[in-house]
């Protein structure tokens, strides 16, 4: 692989682009493929096959050729509401799993770069914050403040935008009250039941890193359940 190709790959990854690396295993030559981009040289005659492979989002060999394709898809976006203690551990797990991550918290004393270095923190109320973020069914929401003033608007946004994972921290009682409020705001039972609350799978632990782990385990599992 040429150094300039590697540089381009790193750049594409940081821009969260969808692309593929195509390599001719005989010559060792590689190129970067993007949708609607013409390949050249030995790759040209396999353009159609490579395109189909890319759409299937798989890695592997193109049939009857010496061409290997590795696809890169856009990372999943995880939005955390509440720059709390658990979030500090969540951030570490989420980073090593290559999710794109950002935190929303209107409380300035929580959402500091000192507590969360090198991370995108939006120090605004969720209604305002969501105006500057693109969200869709590839987005996950983890609500951690258990303060209705902060969590509820974020949960409503996530439900309206069909986030594939929505989880909310809080006891069973807190969650019951939350469900009641959402019902009064006009959300259906099906929508409300899609919220994971109390958040996380049952691991038994009560410490912040253990709760973060139980949330991440649920998030990853739901990522694979997603169509």
């Amino acid at each position, binding site marked *: *692989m*040429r*150094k300039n190709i*590697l*540089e381009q*790959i*790193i750049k594409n*990854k940081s821009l969260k682009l969808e692309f593929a690396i195509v*390599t001719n*295993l005989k*010559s*060792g030559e590689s190129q970067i493929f993007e949708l609607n981009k013409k390949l050249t040289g030995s790759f040209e005659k396999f353009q159609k096959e490579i395109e189909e492979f890319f759409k299937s*989002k*798989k*890695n*592997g*060999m193109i049939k009857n050729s010496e061409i*290997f394709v*590795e696809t*890169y*898809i*856009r*990372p*999943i976006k995880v939005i955390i509401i509440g720059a709390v203690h658990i979030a500090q551990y969540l951030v570490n797990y989420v980073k090593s*799993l*290559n*999710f794109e991550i950002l935190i929303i918290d209107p409380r300035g004393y929580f959402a500091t770069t000192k507590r969360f270095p090198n991370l995108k923190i939006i120090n605004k109320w969720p209604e305002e914050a969501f105006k500057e973020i693109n969200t869709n069914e590839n987005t996950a929401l983890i609500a951690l403040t258990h303060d209705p003033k902060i969590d509820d608007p974020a949960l409503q946004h996530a439900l309206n935008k069909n986030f594939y994972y929505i989880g909310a921290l809080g006891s069973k009682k807190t969650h019951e009250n939350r469900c009641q409020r959402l019902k009064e705001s006009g959300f259906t039972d099906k929508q409300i039941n899609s919220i994971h609350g109390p958040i996380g799978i049952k691991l038994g632990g009560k410490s912040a890193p253990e709760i973060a782990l139980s949330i991440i385990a649920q998030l*990853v599992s739901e*990522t*694979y359940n*997603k*169509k």
Partner: protein
Amino acid sequence: MRNSFDEKILDEAYDWIKTDQKVVLATVIQTWGSSPRQIGSRMIINQNGDFSGSVSGGCVETSVVRESINLLKENKQCKKIEFKVSNESAWEIGLACGGEITIFLEQIN
């Protein structure tokens, strides 16, 4: 859906290149039967035999490191290597899991 997990091996390869190390990139390109790492799994190796990432569960990495150092010594651009189940000797390099894998080695330059 397919996950978007990325072990950031290429990012690490770039860091190595920037510090003037010679780097070989090893990629799992084909698998048969049960193999520990999926297609696209990666490992990088430098001229001193330092490595990062993985192409199996620790079964063939030693051999991949040796082959990579040779590739750099001979200054060859790329090479394909195959690993099969080894029955003859338990000490021979092979995949205890009963799978087969093909790995592509290439210099980054």
